[in-house]
């Protein structure tokens, strides 16, 4: 399936890297389960679009990135935020609309960002992060320090025109850009097959951009493909495209039960993908290979449960922002001198 140009083959992650990636996936999952419960209980000011089921993609890709590498994300951005090193309690506080949040409570779930970690933001506009990542890649290329930029987007965004425009420019300018399409089979509420012609990875090939389609629920497959693409970008080899096949185990957004009257996917389909959940699959693989001691996953779960509880407590007891936060974050002064 892969037709990438050859670069130094990246071997396996080390056992400690694998355990760290497992833990990172668990942090994303449990944090989001908390936010989902908060949403369904009406405790959140806005909506949340959960990443549950897709964690292997963000974690497998971001394992190769440093703080000064860039990512852009989409409306389903909590996983990318945590995978890139964002602090979970600042994520929870942001979604709670508190001044201690990652964006001071001014952005919310769909706009979580941590620029100090190179996380340029989740984005509420489908495809909105693709051009931004390409621009960050241009800045990285100009800086000449081997930084890369990764755009995470879904199969729905693959139908936005900006993707074709960016593939063309990124290939022309040999930008250090990795385009990661998380094909989770649904474009909001429409089955992807009903709105998507052909294979998404094939959209990169006419531009001469190496493209590969992988199992996005297989952490090691993601890690390997991302390692190759990111190494190519770091070594001035230009852009790459990864289509990661995965599945959105939750709905488009948690509040959808309140306005959707007919099912748009079957219980059998969801159950089949629950059986392919990347977290238990990866944990079992590590145990089989003796890389995870019996009982170690339970310890990780307990540690993460504590972290999530602390994040909730931190967020719940934080103050809401006042209008001075808006004033401080304006990009046009109310009157007088700007610039």
């Amino acid at each position, binding site marked *: 399936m892969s037709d990438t140009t050859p670069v130094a083959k990246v071997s396996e992650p080390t056992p400690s890297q694998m355990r760290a990636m497992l833990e990172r996936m668990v942090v994303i999952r449990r944090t989001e389960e908390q936010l989902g419960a908060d949403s369904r209980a009406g405790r959140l000011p806005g909506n949340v679009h959960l990443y549950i089921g897709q964690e292997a993609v963000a974690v497998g890709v971001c394992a190769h990135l440093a703080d000064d590498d860039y990512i852009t994300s989409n409306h389903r951005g909590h996983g990318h935020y945590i995978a890139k090193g964002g602090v979970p309690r600042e994520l929870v506080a942001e979604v709670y609309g508190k001044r201690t949040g*990652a964006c001071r409570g001014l952005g919310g779930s769909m706009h979580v*960002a941590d620029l100090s970690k190179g996380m340029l*933001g989740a984005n509420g506009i489908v495809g909105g992060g693709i*051009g*931004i990542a390409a621009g*960050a890649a241009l800045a990285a290329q100009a800086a000449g320090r081997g930084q890369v930029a990764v755009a995470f987007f879904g199969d729905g965004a693959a139908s936005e025109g900006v993707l074709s425009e960016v593939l063309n420019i990124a290939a022309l300018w040999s930008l250090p850009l990795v385009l990661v399409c998380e094909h989770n089979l649904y474009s909001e509420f429409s089955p992807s097959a009903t709105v998507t012609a052909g294979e998404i990875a094939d959209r990169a090939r006419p531009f001469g951009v190496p493209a590969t389609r992988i199992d996005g629920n297989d952490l090691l497959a993601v890690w390997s493909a991302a390692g190759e693409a990111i190494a190519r970008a770091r070594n001035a080899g230009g852009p790459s495209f990864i289509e990661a096949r995965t599945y959105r185990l939750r709905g488009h957004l948690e509040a959808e039960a309140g306005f959707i009257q007919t099912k748009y996917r079957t219980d059998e389909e969801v159950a089949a993908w629950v059986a392919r959940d990347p977290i238990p699959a990866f944990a079992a693989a590590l145990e089989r290979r003796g890389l995870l001691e019996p009982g170690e996953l339970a310890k990780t779960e307990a540690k993460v449960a504590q972290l999530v509880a602390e994040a909730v407590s931190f967020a719940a007891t934080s103050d809401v922002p006042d209008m001075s936060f808006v004033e*401080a*974050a304006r990009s046009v002064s109310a009157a007088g001198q700007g610039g």
Partner: protein
Amino acid sequence: MTQAINQAYLEEMERDPRLILFGEDVELSIFGDTRGLHARFGAARVRNTPISEAALTGMAVGAAMAGNPVICHLMFSNFLYTGFDAIANQAAKLRLMTGGQAQLPVTFVAAIGGGTSTAAQHSDTPYPLLMNLGGLQVVVPATPADAKGLLKSALRGLNPTVFLIPRTRGGVMGEVPEGDQLVPFGQARVHRSGGDVTVVAIGACVTHALAAAETLAAQNVAAEVVDPRTLAPLDEATIVASVRKTGRLIVVDEARDRCSAASHIAAVVADTAFASLRAPIRRITVPDTSLPYAPALERALMPDPAKIVAAALDLVAWSPTERSS
């Protein structure tokens, strides 16, 4: 004015070696404003691009977020529309959405206005919608000196700015001060003082206002001509102070009348200087239609000195008892 803009690019690109410029045909430069820059700074910093406005505006935002100052040249302002997501949804909002984390040293450049039979898709004056986005600085120079000084401020700033070049002003001559003269945003320029009527004019309309003021002076009507220079931020204080002195206001604006800069400025003055007004506020704008190709029709729809003179004489003669507004 074209040369003044060219000088500003050149001086700022020399001053900041990270500053890059890209856009369609910027190497050749169809307006002349980017001429010579490619030869001077090379293909890495002055980049001809594909015709891909959605990607270009997005990339400008991304490069700026990553700390690289950038000029995104969009040629005609109508092409803002094909690249509008990254301008309206990203550039205008990212600083607020990220809680102030994002700095966006990005300047979008485009030419505005009719008057040269470029027809409806190459003659828009879209600053009203840019002013309304709540996160963009909007700059419209009227003189070569201001064009240079305002552009230099934009290129050194950390907030997203749209620099709109009045197309019919490209060949306008004027003194440009030597050296590093920056024009701050949010400070109007009073081009001519007068006590009878305030004429706030934007971009190319400043020339019409000054011509009208000459004609009016011959008829003993002293017009004060105020040029906001930046529409966001807007120097309300200078405009209001002028109206408090003259008691009469005409706003001349090449945008279409509905939700124009003129209607906004009229509202500001009505709110804050109502008691000073001795006559109704008059807006001289383009009616709510696209501009036609035929020169006589295009000219007839646009502001000109005669319309300003007529409005000023009307306001000076206006009396609540003798006529209705």
